């Protein structure tokens, strides 16, 4: 089975889970005065009613299940569009939410690729650019003070009192230590600015995948922000070929070893 099909199937699972478990039905009932859409969602007059949101969720989950079962592109496209719609509604509350954006962007090329696999390369390039531009934005708006100043200490101390992190002691410990705060900030900015190297130097990809997962798990521990889709998207696209090889290994290959092992 082509690498693209395996990776697209993995993303279909993630999209299905996101659609099924997301807080979308709770968005219904928002007064029109509070509706703050972005981009094409400005075409909507207000938050759709509950029936519409649930219907899109059902269609999205069914499409994701079909995409996993028959591994074709069309149901994947349908599931992707449903997530785009639901996540777009979620970001219409006022705050620009980035939780779903990396997966939507990284998988966008797969909507147009049947079997050639070019979409994995383009998706990875897009993911690398997103991280890079996040680093550039920090330099542009704050300069190196983002790392060398007390910025990270204030971020961590505020987060530790926000009630969001499950383990506020981690954020508090980093915030109280100037050294740990500078190291944390340097790791984040360094990772973001060097991310395009992962596209160019294939050998570095497992390291960047591990670092991206560490960054987003750390973000959850310290700030209580849910970026698990970013971690999954970066890891899946960076490690697409090893993951596909591992999942393609026939189970029979491992069986003789198990049988011949001494009791």
């Amino acid at each position: 089975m082509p690498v693209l099909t395996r990776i697209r199937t993995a993303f279909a699972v993630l999209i299905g889970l996101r659609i099924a478990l997301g807080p979308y039905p709770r968005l219904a009932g928002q007064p029109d005065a509070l509706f703050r859409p972005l981009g094409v969602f400005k075409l909507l007059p207000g938050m759709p009613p509950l029936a519409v949101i649930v219907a899109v969720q059902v269609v999205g989950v069914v499409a994701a299940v079909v995409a996993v079962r028959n591994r074709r592109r069309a149901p994947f496209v349908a599931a992707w569009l449903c997530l785009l719609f639901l996540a777009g509604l979620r970001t219409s509350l006022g705050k620009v939410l980035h939780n779903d954006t990396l997966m939507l962007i990284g998988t966008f090329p797969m909507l147009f690729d049947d079997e050639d696999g070019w979409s994995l390369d383009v998706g990875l390039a897009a993911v690398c650019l997103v991280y890079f531009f996040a680093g550039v934005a920090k330099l542009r708006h704050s300069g190196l003070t983002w790392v060398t100043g007390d910025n990270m200490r204030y971020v961590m101390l505020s987060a530790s009192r926000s009630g969001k992190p499950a383990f506020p002691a981690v954020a508090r410990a980093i915030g109280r230590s100037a050294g740990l705060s500078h190291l944390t900030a340097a790791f984040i900015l360094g990772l973001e600015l060097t991310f395009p190297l992962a596209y160019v130097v294939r050998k570095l990809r497992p390291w960047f995948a591990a670092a991206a997962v560490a960054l987003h798990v750390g973000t959850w521990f310290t700030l209580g922000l849910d970026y698990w889709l970013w971690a999954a998207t970066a890891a899946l696209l960076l490690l697409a070929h090893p993951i596909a090889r591992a999942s393609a290994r026939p189970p029979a290959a491992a069986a003789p070893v198990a049988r011949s092992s001494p009791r």
Partner: protein
Amino acid sequence: VAVVLLGGLTLCALTSTEAWPLSGWKLFSQVRRADQGGWAATAVVDGAEQPLPFARLPRAYHGAEHLLAEFPRMSPGRRAEVCGAWADAVDTLGPRPTEIRVYRTVTHTTLDGTPPTVTRNLFTSCPS
């Protein structure tokens, strides 16, 4: 597809445009300092002022801090609509507020672990 996607990403990033899901990627890009500006809203119920209980309201009412930040750019009519929507929501939890007040806030955080202090200045109020 590649040109559209990578070009769009680059354009939005360089121009700080929010064309969701494309973005300017300003994730935590502003430096946090000891004094952090913000906004707060309160409801006056039976003559007593209390913070608007956004956490107790449905998710559809979350994100208010971003709406509050737009108050300086809103027309009086638009402000009244937003205040009215919040007053209706508070009404479902208890007595209807007679007034919604919007404050500019400055939160002062110290590095020595003492609790932060918040100072506030009334920006506007709307009867409901």
